[in-house]
Each structure stands twice: as structure tokens, then as C-alpha cells.
């Protein structure tokens, strides 16, 4: 799990980073950040409308996608619910990579863990401010880090932020979380 529970009163912070600091964000983007989300949303529309990812990129490049740990085959049938965890990845190598691929020929090899529409609502639903956790892997991490991280509040635990020069020595306890809004100076 990205977080055991979503804090109801996490403070907000704004920070301006240099482009070079983007690499310090990559570990937490792999581990997962919280974004505010509608109560229920079709996965494709969540990616394009809520996260702002180009529709062509969604269709062509997001070849491996997990919803609460289950590989997703159909973006239009899958539902993003509050508290869920969404992981985005490019195409993966080898047989197992092909097995996890969206709509892949070898999908049957992962029978038992595939997304079947049965994901339930997470810890903080229903809520006034529902949160969905998003993880970025490999090419999606490189291509979408700025798309995800810039200009929107991200729910992050302090322990992930100690390598950011603009935020060193200014955090709370490591397990506490903060809504962080990032902009880049360059």
C-alpha cells in the first residue's frame, strides 16, 4: 500500500524546483503519490481528463497498467475509485512482460490476478476529497513525471522529500504526509 490511511488534515506546501531536481522526485513517483480525484471515473477519462495525459499516449504507450495490483485490459471498462492505486508502465520484456500487457495474447497466463471490475472503494471513500494513488514506472516515469507532478497537489509522505534541496530540514515526522504543489523554475 502506498499509505496505510489518507490523513484528513495534511498540511499544504508549495515549492519551486529546478529541472535537475526532477530526478529526486522519481523515487516517490515510483512508490506512489496521491492525487485528488472524482468519486468514480472511467479509467481512460481519469488518465486523459484528470491527469492530463495525451490520449494518443494513453492508447499507444501505456501498455501495462495495474489497478490495485491487477493488470487492466480494457481502459473503458475499468473504474478508478477513491483510495485505489493505479500504476502506469510501458511495454515490458519477456514472456512475463507480455503476460502483463494490456489486452495481450498471453493474458490467460495471469488468470487469477487480472482486473475483473471487482475493486472496492478504499480507505477514504466516500469523502469530500477522494484520493487516488498513482505510480509511474520506466518509460511512463520518464515521460509523465512532469505531467503528473507539476501544478497539482500531490499527497506525499515527508520521508520521500528529504532529498529535495528546497525542502530539506523543513519537514515533519517521516510518516506524516503533506499536500505538495510543485512548479519548476526552468
Amino acid at each position, binding site marked *: 500500500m502506498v499509505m496505510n490511511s489518507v490523513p484528513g488534515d495534511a498540511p499544504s506546501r508549495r515549492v519551486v524546483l529546478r529541472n535537475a531536481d526532477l*530526478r529526486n522526485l*522519481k*523515487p516517490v513517483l*515510483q*512508490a506512489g503519490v496521491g492525487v485528488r480525484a472524482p468519486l468514480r471515473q472511467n479509467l481512460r477519462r481519469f488518465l486523459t481528463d484528470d491527469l492530463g495525459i495525451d490520449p494518443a499516449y494513453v492508447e499507444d*504507450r501505456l*501498455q*501495462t497498467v*495495474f489497478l490495485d*495490483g*491487477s*493488470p487492466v485490459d480494457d481502459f473503458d471498462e475499468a473504474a478508478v475509485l477513491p483510495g485505489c492505486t493505479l*500504476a502506469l*508502465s*510501458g*511495454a*515490458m*520484456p*519477456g*514472456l*512475463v*512482460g*507480455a*503476460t*502483463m500487457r494490456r489486452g495481450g*495474447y*498471453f*493474458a*490467460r*497466463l*495471469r*488468470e*487469477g*490476478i*487480472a482486473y475483473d471490475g471487482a475493486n472496492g472503494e478504499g480507505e477514504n471513500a466516500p469523502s469530500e476529497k477522494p484520493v487516488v494513488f498513482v*505510480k509511474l*514506472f*520506466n*518509460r511512463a*516515469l*520518464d515521460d509523465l513525471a512532469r505531467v503528473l507532478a507539476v501544478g497539482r497537489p500531490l499527497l506525499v509522505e515527508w520521508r520521500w522529500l528529504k532529498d529535495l534541496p528546497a525542502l530539506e530540514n523543513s519537514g515533519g515526522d517521516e510518516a506524516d504526509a503533506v499536500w505538495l504543489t510543485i512548479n519548476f523554475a526552468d
Partner: protein
Amino acid sequence: MDKIVRIDVGAAGGPKISEGPIGDYAGLGGRGLTSGIVAAEVPADSHALGPENKLVIAPGLLSGTAAAVGGRLSVGCKSPLTGGIKEANSGGQGAQILAKLGYAAIVLEGEYSGDDLYVVRVSTEGVKIEADPSVKMATNYQMMDKFLGEYEDKGCMLSIGPAGEMRMANSTIAVTDMEGRPTRHAGRGGVGAVMGSKGIKAIILDGRGAKIRKPADPEAFKKANKLWSEGLSSNAVTGEGLPAYGTNVLTNVINEAGAYPTRNFATGQFEGAAKISGETQAELEVARGGTATHGCHSGCIIRCSGIFNNKNGEFVTKQPEYETVWAHGADCGIDDLDTIAELDRLDDDFGLDTIEMGATIAVAMDAGVIEFGDGPGAIDLVKQTGQGTPMGRILGSGTANTAKVFGLERAPCVKGQAMPAYDPRAIKGIGVTYATTTQGADHTAGYAVATNIMKVGGDVDPMAIEGQAELSQALQVATAAVDATGMCLFVAFAILDQPETFQALVDLLNSCYGWELDGDGVNAYGRKILDCERDFNARAGFTPEDDRLPRYFSREPLAPHNVVFDIPDSELDKVHA
């Protein structure tokens, strides 16, 4: 590539070398040739470390040509780890140089006796062998220090470390890379022990003067190779993902899927996965002056390997692979890349299979020998193995034996070989392959080369449990065919995606040899290899009851999906029916 050289280590008066034409084995290469020779010439009920076993080293059908990514080397024998037939596959420079020197295979055979250790030298002038007492118990990096001057210019060295000399069932044969380092290994199944049982410490290949192999139809070959290379470069996996992050790109994804075996296969997710992921590793390598993009053999355009330096920018090891990072990482509860890199270096130096070694240490941790997560403790255990201490001897005999010594049921092995980095409860199709391959638990035996051109898989319901057996069979056949060509298995994704790229591979074979293969022909080729391996294993005493996973995988649910391996035995038996 029409000669086979045989070295009889038991000949009167000392090892005897004989060269002859490929003869009845014509048309075979790589795994096709190693399995063909082993199945024909090794009594299936012989002892793997006895005089009747043979070690066969063979480049692939396209090795030594200008074909991109064709430099994989096959090493075959009866395995001391599994007791069945074995093909261990390696990168490094060995295949390209051996093929250019004109050799389809080197066969080590006969009954070794005495204390001498031998170094074999192969060049355009032929093959020589001489005793060299100075190499006794030398590690692979020590062998590099001693012999690099002989092979660094267009050459390569195959060597065993102390583990192979001690005939440990977990020992490898190292194959030097483009920088001359012993970083690539024919790893699985104890092939190093068989080389050690023949008294051969090293085979030095001198490629100076050796010419690139000429195809039967040069124009058609050139055209096919262009299409082949373009297909690999344009594919998102082979052209982008693998060069950028290496095989360890799989860590985050497999972990997210809940299929990442953690702490001796106790759960399917590791809380430290992001710290040891391919993305994190690539950033660290580049920041320390290494690289995340590096080929393991000349002619490779996928370049999924890399260079891992320490904090001071000094070379430690090649970029640890996904399986190595998993085995020494999550399976042991270790989340530090520097510790994992050190373990990888030690494995390479002593000549130990990283998958088997990591899985063995995890079993030792589960048994309480050391704690899960104890990096220094794991390093000590590998050192003990390389030194041959009593504990090291136990660990060097493999995961199954170590579990037996410490009284554990939980040994994640099939046919005595440890499972690699995918839990079969979460990915049941992989479990079918683990159970039914001729090689023991092996993730590469069922790779994806199945395209519509090959018509594999048929019209089975994609989500039905009954489809797993048929698909696994098709994949095993296809993989055997690829293993025979010398191509790296990572071409599989490009072939799967792009039928024109698969056709380019078929055209490479046809234009190289003057054949007229089609997709069905490639399928038949792979089937023939698999059939001869199955036959050998049956003669060695294997029955359908050996094509099973350990019982606890059907009993203990794997978190987070809480799934068990529930493919019935009747389905497993259909794979090779």
C-alpha cells in the same frame, strides 16, 4: 561452422584432441546441437559428474555472422543439479568468436583423473591443451588478470571458478564480455561442475584472423538483417525499455502485480522494490559514471546490460539483472543495490548461479541461519560457498538440498532447480512452464515467440484455465527454436509485436543456410529439440510426477491477491501429451 572438436580428457597419455566434420548433426546449432549431442551420446542414466557425461559448447546457427543480436552461446550436458538434460545459455563473446573460428561445437568427454588442471586454447591454427598448475582454485577475475593479455584482442575466455572446481551443483561457466570481464555466465544447472569434472579450467578463444561467416545468399541476408535490425530498434521494448533500464525494468511491474517472490516466496510484494528497481538502478549507475546501456556481446543492438560502479566510481560488476536483483534482493529481504551488486560480483568471481545462490540464501534465512535482510550475512555465506567451507558446501549444492539439510518444506524448486523471479501462484501460466519444461524451474524455457504466423495457441478461450497447458507447450517449442539460432531471447517481444520482424528472422536463417523454412518449419524445429530433451529425461527416469510444483504452492495463498496454484495435474500432463 562445420567442425566439431572433441577433447577426450581420459585418453592414454593425456587429453586427446580430435576435429571432425559436423556430420549427422548438420543443420543443428545452439540448443539444438547441445541437446542433440547429449541425447545421442550421453547415457541418460549416467552420473552427471562421471566419465560418461559430456559437456557440449555450441554457438547458435546465426552466431558469427553479421546478424544482429546473434551471439548467445549454449552449453549442454546432463545436469548435476536436476539430473535431467540441461542447456544453459550465455551472453559474452564466446559464441561470435567460436563460430567465426569455424567450430559448431566443442565437446569435452572422457574420464578425467589425476590432479592436473588444463587450459584449452582455440585459434585459427587449431586447438591445443596444456596443464597449468597455477590456475588451481583461481577465481574468475583472477583468471582474467592472468590471461587477459592473450584474449583481449578479438578473443574471449570461458572459465570456471572455485565452485566449478569443487564440482558444486550450483556452479557456472563464465564467458568474458566485450571488456574481457567474466560477467556473463552459462548459469543454470551446474554446468560448471561438469567442466570441472573433466579437469578443464579454461578455454581461451583467440579470434585474431577469424573471418565473419558468409551466408549462402549474401544479398538476401543483408536485406533480412536490415529489416531485422530495424524491427528490433523500433520496438518499444527492445528499442527503448531494455536499453534504458535493463532487465531490472521488470521489478516495479512484477511487484505491482503481486507476483514478486519475497522472503523465500512468502509473499508477492516487497516493500523495498522501488529502492532496487531498474529505474533507480539506472539513475544510480549513470550518476556514478557507469552506464545503463551496454551490450553483452558484439553485434547486440538491444544493449540491455550496463556497468555498476561503487560510490567512488570504481567498477564493481555488470548491471545486475532482474533475476539477480530479485534473488539477492527481495527473496532475501535485502533492499540495497550496493549489497546486491557486491553479491553479484562474488557470484561471478566464484562462478555461482545468481538465481540459485539467492534462492539458497533465502532458504537459509528461512531456516534461521541468518536473518532476512542481513546483507553482510548474505555476503559472508557466498564467500563461504566460494571457499568451500562446510556451510559453503551445503549452500553450493543448491536450494533443494539446502532446504533438506535444514529441515524445510519450503524449497521453491522443480526437478531440483530453484524457481526464478515470478511466483507461479500469481502467474499460473509461468507455473505450468516451471513444472513441465525439460530444464527444471526455468523462466526462459517458455518465452513468447508465438505469433499468428506460427499459429501457436490456437483458438483457446483467453481466460480459460484449460488454455494454459496448450499455450505453455507452444511457447516451449518456440523458445527451443530461438535458442538454436543464437539469438537473445529478448528478441521475442519484437517478434510477437511485429510479424514482419519474425519473418526477417526466418529469412536470416534461410539466406544463411539456403533453407526454405516457414513459420511451421521453425515450429517443427523447436518441437524436434523439445522431443529429444523429453526423451532423454524419460530415459533418465523422469515421469509425469516430476512435472509438478512443490505441494505448498497449491496450499499456501500468496498475498496480496491470495491466490494458489490450482492448475490440476491433468492439465499439466496435457502440455506434452
